[in-house]
Each structure stands twice: as C-alpha cells, then as structure tokens.
C-alpha cells in the first residue's frame, strides 16, 4: 500500500512548526509499512496538483500569503480535480483561509481565495488577535474526541457551515467565537498549530484513512503506541481544566 502526499508551499507557508504535521503523517505510515511519498510544490513550478491522495498546506504571515495567492489561484483547476477525485485535504491557518472566499488583511487589502467553500476571513485589530493554547471537542468522520493546539491568528473566519470542533478553551474561528475549524468528509481545515498532529494522533489517523480511501478504499490502521502523544495532549487538557477520560 502506498500514499502520495503533496505539501503545498512548503518553503513559504511553514509558520509555527506546521512541518511537524508532515513528519507525523510520514512516520505513522512508515510504522505501518505503508509507503509514503511526500512531494512539494512552490511558486511557479507548474506541478500538477491532481493525482495526490492528500494535500497539505500550512500557515504563513500576511507577507507570504500575498506572495502565493496568485500562484494558488492559478492551480484552481487542478485542486478542483483533486477534490472531485476524492483526495483528502489538511489545511492549517493560512491554508484554511485561502480555500474560502477571501482574506482581508490588516491593511484592508482583499486577497481572493479559491472559493471552494463559503466561509471568508477578515483581519481584526491587535486586541482581538486569537493567541494561546486551545482545547476543543472535535467531531470528524463519526468520531468525537478532544484535541489540543495553539492558535495564533488575526483573521476572523466567518460563515463556516460545518465547524470541526466546539471550543472548550480558547477562541476558534473568531475571537471568543466558540467554534473551531471547518470539516467535510474530505477537508479538514483548522487554526490549530502546535503542530496539530503530534499531540492529536487520532486526527492524524483519521486524515490518513481519508487519504488512503481514494485508492485503497476503507483501510483499518494498525494501532500504534501513543503513550507519549497522549501524555502530551492530556498535560495540556488538564492544565486548561477541560480534560475528560476517553
């Protein structure tokens, strides 16, 4: 069994340790004997983005976001094809924002998004930047579980039809907003850094299963020893006072 991952704008959209997510996906495949190939793409390389099982994009500052968005828009057709073809998507922060309608930055400049989904994002003032540890109760592919991360975004994402999680502690899509991220049965988009996947192996495995589904159908993943992962996650859940036994 093999898996093909595309890491979009690995050299630009890589704020806040998002590369940890790729490392986790890769390692969790390898430990299960799944051959995992990670390709990267960046501005102007013209790589065909369709044909991948999983497409990952991380966050970037306004500066980087401005640099890449035109290139991203030029790949719209390929991305649409990937979506239609059943690929899984994992989008963090800036990646999340750019798959929506638009992003309005600090200076009021509108950065057009891919428009695959109806949500949109508007930058807020300094006092309403969402920064800090976050704990959520997430629901994805019929499973309900707790997840932790670190959020750090000025953008307020509104009109989210299907959020990924209910916020237990922290902000989420908007300042004090109560809901976090966006999820469909193919796309998981979230503001949670940390990186997201190391401390939330359950999310990692759900994303992997979605990605494998495209060419291999329903796959049962062999359980791994997640003692450290669980400890790291529970330490934060306990500190935030929201931990429940699962």
């Amino acid at each position, binding site marked *: 069994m093999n898996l093909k991952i595309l890491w979009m704008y690995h*050299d*630009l959209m*890589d*704020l*806040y*340790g*998002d*590369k*940890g997510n790729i*490392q*986790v996906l890769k*390692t969790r495949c390898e430990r299960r004997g799944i051959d995992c190939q990670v390709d990267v793409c960046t*501005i102007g390389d013209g790589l065909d983005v369709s044909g991948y099982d999983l497409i990952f994009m991380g966050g970037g*500052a*306004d*500066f980087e976001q401005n*640099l890449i968005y035109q290139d991203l828009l030029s790949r719209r057709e390929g991305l649409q094809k990937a979506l239609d073809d059943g690929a899984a998507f994992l989008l963090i922060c800036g990646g999340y924002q750019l798959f929506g309608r638009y992003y309005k930055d600090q200076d009021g400049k509108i950065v057009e998004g891919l428009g695959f989904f109806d949500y949109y994002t508007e930058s807020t003032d*300094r006092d309403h*930047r969402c*920064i*800090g*540890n976050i704990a959520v109760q997430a629901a994805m592919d019929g499973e309900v579980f707790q997840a932790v991360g*670190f959020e*750090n975004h*000025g953008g307020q994402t509104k009109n989210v039809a299907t959020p990924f999680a209910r916020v237990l502690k922290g902000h989420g899509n908007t300042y004090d907003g109560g809901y976090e991220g966006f999820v469909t049965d193919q796309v998981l988009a979230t503001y949670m*850094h*940390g*990186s997201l996947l*190391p*401390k939330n192996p359950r999310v990692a495995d759900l994303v992997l299963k979605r990605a494998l589904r495209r060419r291999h159908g329903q796959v049962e993943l062999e359980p791994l020893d997640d003692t*450290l*992962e669980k*400890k*790291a996650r529970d*330490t934060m859940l306990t500190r935030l006072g929201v931990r429940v036994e699962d």
Partner: protein
Amino acid sequence: MSIALKLAQLSRSLLARAGRGGSLPGTIALKADPDFISRFKMPPKVIIVTGTNGKTTTSNLIAESLRKNGLKVINNHRGDNLNVGIATVLAAGSDSNFNIQADAVVLEVDELTVYRQFSALRPTALVVTNFFRDQLDRAGEMETIIRKLMEVTENFEGDLILNGDDPNVLRIADNAKKARVRLFSVGPNEKTRTETDEASEGKFCPRCGNRLIYDYYQYSHIGRFHCDHDDFGQIQPELLVPEIDFAAGTFTAEGHVYHSFVNSVFGVYNCACVLCLLKALGLSMEAADEVFIGYELKEGRNEEFALSKPCVINLIKNPTGANEVMKYILSRPGDKNVCIFLNDNDQDGTDVSWIWDAHFERLNVPEVKRIICSGKRAYDMALRLKYEGLEDRLQVIEDAGEAVRWLDEQNLDSYIMATYTALHSTRALLRKQVKR
C-alpha cells in the same frame, strides 16, 4: 525634583543594599510617571542594540569597548531589556535632576517593544543584529516587528548599524533615508555552505517580491544574497570580515587579526557588529580586541558546571539559536548525554511549536547516548524527538532536580539546553549539585 525619580532611586539603593537587583524601581517610576524614560537628559552617545539573537552579548561587548576607549558608560548588562529594566538602569545612572552621569548609554532593547522606546530614548546610534523567528505568540508575526522598526527609523538621523547579511535587517536601510547607514558583513569561510535546510525567513526581495539568490549561507538565512531584478543585497559593507580562522579562534577585519570570544560564526557576527559601530563613531577598534579576548559569556551561555563529568548549559529560545547550540554540542568530542528543559511561561514564549522548526534530528548520532526531557512541556519535547527516531534514547524526567541528579550520576559529559525561565532555576540546581 521628580517623585518618580526619587522613588526609583530610593528603591534601587534599598534593593542594592539587600544585595538584590531587578526592575522594580523602574516599574514604580513608570507607574508614577508614564513619560519617565523621556525625561532623562541623555549623554552625547546613546546606542540602542536590538534584534532577535545576540543582543545581550553584543551590547555588553559594545559597552566594554567604549570603556576601553576611555568613556564612562551606563548599560543594562544583565539583559533587562523592557521599559521597566531600562527605566531602572537610567534612574541608577542619573543625578536627582535626570542628568545621566556618563559619556554614553548602551541599551539592549527588546525588539518587540523598541518602537515604543525609540523616541523617548533619543538614540544616536541603532544597532540591529538579526531577525529570526522567535516567540511568535508574543509578536504576532515577524513581519510586524520589522515594519514597526522601519516606521520609527524613517526620520532617524543617527548611525544605523545593520547586519548586511540578513535581508530582514537590510530592509531597514531602504526606509531610513536620513540615517547614516553602516553595514557589517562576514565573507565566506570554512563553515559557509551553498545550500541550507535552516533558512525560513527572508527568502524574498522586500522591494520586488522575487526570490532572493543566495551565493552562500553562514547560518539560518544569514549569508550573501542578492535580487536579480533590482540591486537589493548588493552591499558596500563598512566593516567586512573576509576571513575566519576557526583553528586559531581568530578573524580578520581591515587588515587586523582579532580574537573571537566564542569560536562560532555568530560570535564573529557579534564582533563585526561591534567593530562596525566603533568605526562609525571614530573610536579605536583595537581596544575591542582586548574586550573580545577577555570576554566571558553571560550566565547560561556555554556555561560549564563540574558535575561528575563536565556539564555545559545553554539557553535556547528559538529554532536558530537551538540549531547553533546543537552544532556546538555535536562539535564536542566523545559520548554525551543531552538534557532539554522546555518551559512555556510568558518569557519563554507560550507557543512551543517552534521546536518543530528546529533541527533536533541532528541529535540522532551515536555519540548522543541518552536525551532527558524536562520542564513544563517535557512531553512535547519528547514527542518531537520521538518523531526523529530517538525514541529508544529518550526519557522524560519531569522534576528538574531529579533530571540534574540523573545527569550527575551517569558519569558522562552532558549538555543542557534550557528555555529562558528554566535557565536560572537549572543553574541553581547545578550549583547545588556541584557542591555535593
């Protein structure tokens, strides 16, 4: 007579008598008078040092070099670089009428807040060491820091001493049309590389947005770069270090040989920065060499403790710093244990995701026998290492005292990396352990 000043000076002398330091006097003064810092009558030379890494070291080297040049200097040598720390050191160096009793003030100023202090301090020289990814939770984004610094230097008429090999720093020159810009630069040497896996910032030309071309990298994104579409990066350095001799621990500048206080490229950058400033001020650069030779790094910077076998502790606070510390550790011969204290208090940065940007895979060499993870985010650190295939060698010891005892018992050279708030408590534990 100012009440704020009187309070600050009184509390300072009481604290000093009790053998204590700290920023309490400045806190009191700023409470009583929010404009406290702007009231001082500054001496003819006011030098601000800011940037991500190397502020404390560089500003201390500058202060010492000015002293060797015969000037009376006031500086915040312990690195208290926020407004309260600065208010404290100014109050201590002033008479009762706000007259600073010195020829020069040298201040390390936090890069996130320097834009707020700038006009109150009225600097005659601004020194910028480098800009790396650091504590983004507090900063928001690095871009914001640079933009704010560019705003306050727009009408700055003093000496602007900039790292010409850091595109994020060089940008400031573009916007500071009235300043006397002086660049320092370090040429290729044996540690220079033409490729890197470390650079994360400064990949694009700030003028036109095109990708910068790098002839070489020194470390992280520091190196010689240029833009093919305009002349960004084509610099005329005021102070160039064309050669470094790592075997001898020396480097060359302007035809003279200088001694590096620490045998590393970033150490040479600190020295180049100091020499560049001295040259701009028309002061003796040779005096600086005496300072470099005798300079001992501050507490927690390559500091050695005599456990059963030597134990060296270093501060880590961001990917670039951690990468450089790991290069140093791995350059030391023989088997060793490594211990990492990861805290996430405010001063450490509450976001620990930066550990995923640092190259901890470098610890995956046979000479590194065991790796202990400790501190408030010990399990995050352990996870980071697990995903580098270091699972079999790592161990979490949450209690710091126990971690230090464990290192002592192993009878093996050891290296500690600690984030800011873990640094001093760990040093205290090490001192205790040495006495046993």
